[in-house]
């Protein structure tokens, strides 16, 4: 089955997100239509993978919120701006995570600048290692 997206692309298939939306909040008819659209676009395996991820995070979200855990400190430092921009502090479960102070916010800004380059480098090294191993 050909992939609509090539490795290195960071685009997201609209059919993929439409399928997630239909599973989470759609009627059986919506789900069937979204499943068929994703299947046509990406094949059976992609639909099954997406179904698995939806199932997994339906589980993980409930674990986090039923246990009352806080966001892990390194993630929070990195994500604080995203949290503000996305309005995620409005979620009830945000009460379990205290906002971070100014120093950590500044450090988080620095991290966010270098992170994309570092992650791309890590991915490239991993891909090269995988090719040489194969």
């Amino acid at each position: 089955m050909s992939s609509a997206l090539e490795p290195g692309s960071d685009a997201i298939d609209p059919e993929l997100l439409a399928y997630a939306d239909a599973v989470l909040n759609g009627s059986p008819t919506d789900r069937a239509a979204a499943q068929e659209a994703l299947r046509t676009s990406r094949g059976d395996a992609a639909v099954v993978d997406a179904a698995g991820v939806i199932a997994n995070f339906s589980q993980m979200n409930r674990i986090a919120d039923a246990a009352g855990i806080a966001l892990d400190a390194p993630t929070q430092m990195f994500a604080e701006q995203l949290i503000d921009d996305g309005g995620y502090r409005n979620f009830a479960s945000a009460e379990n995570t205290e906002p971070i102070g100014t120093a950590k916010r500044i450090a988080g800004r620095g991290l966010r600048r270098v992170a994309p380059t570092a992650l791309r480098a890590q991915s490239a090294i991993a891909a090269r290692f995988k090719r040489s191993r194969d």
Partner: protein
Amino acid sequence: MIDFGDSSLTVRGDIGEAHATALDDIARAGTWLTGTERVAIAAEVRAAPHSTLSLERKNALSPYAVAGTHESNGPLSSDQIEAIHRITIDPARLSRRFFDESVAAWSTPERYVEMVGVTVRMVAIDTFCRAIGADSQPLPEPVDGDPSGVQPEGLTTGEAWVPMLSDEAMRAEGLSNTKSAGNVVRALSAVPAEVRGWGVLSAAHYVPNDKVAEPSWSNRALLRHEIEAVATRVSTFNECFY
């Protein structure tokens, strides 16, 4: 191994195996709950979306604005059923008050944690089946036996509503091989068997826990950033801050 034959999709074998393992485990006595109690929890996960009382509470401005009790014919009390239903269909509004009342209903934090572990595994299994257009798997028959009652060493309190194992204790229990496990991995660690149960399903549905931190790792048809995009979509829908 579970057959998803009523779906038109070809499903990876590891997913069927993980579901079979989970259902078999749910049927057996756990650490603090009997097989009968655990299967009753699984049944309530399925009953929740059809419960008039639970749906009224979910749709109310506050779930506490709607009075009423759940019909209790089996081993679970009305308050225990309420906790299962809230986690299943209204997870975005779980609060400290919800936790305190639920622990009172379940007697101890450990019994509450085990209930959460069983509940969320059933949510995952049923969500997957619904997503691929398959019928729900039949609930297992409870297996006789007594809960083990094994309390892990190294529980800490104060980091979350529930007690959790320290990172050192997580490694000692074989639940983590990293210096610092994420809080969501530690969340069920007051009952280590529930962390293991979660890990079996999560490795099949998502990625193995030891690969989560590798940003490009995927052996799936979806690329990793696509997997994470779907994860974000789900978490936003569920209004999960974590």
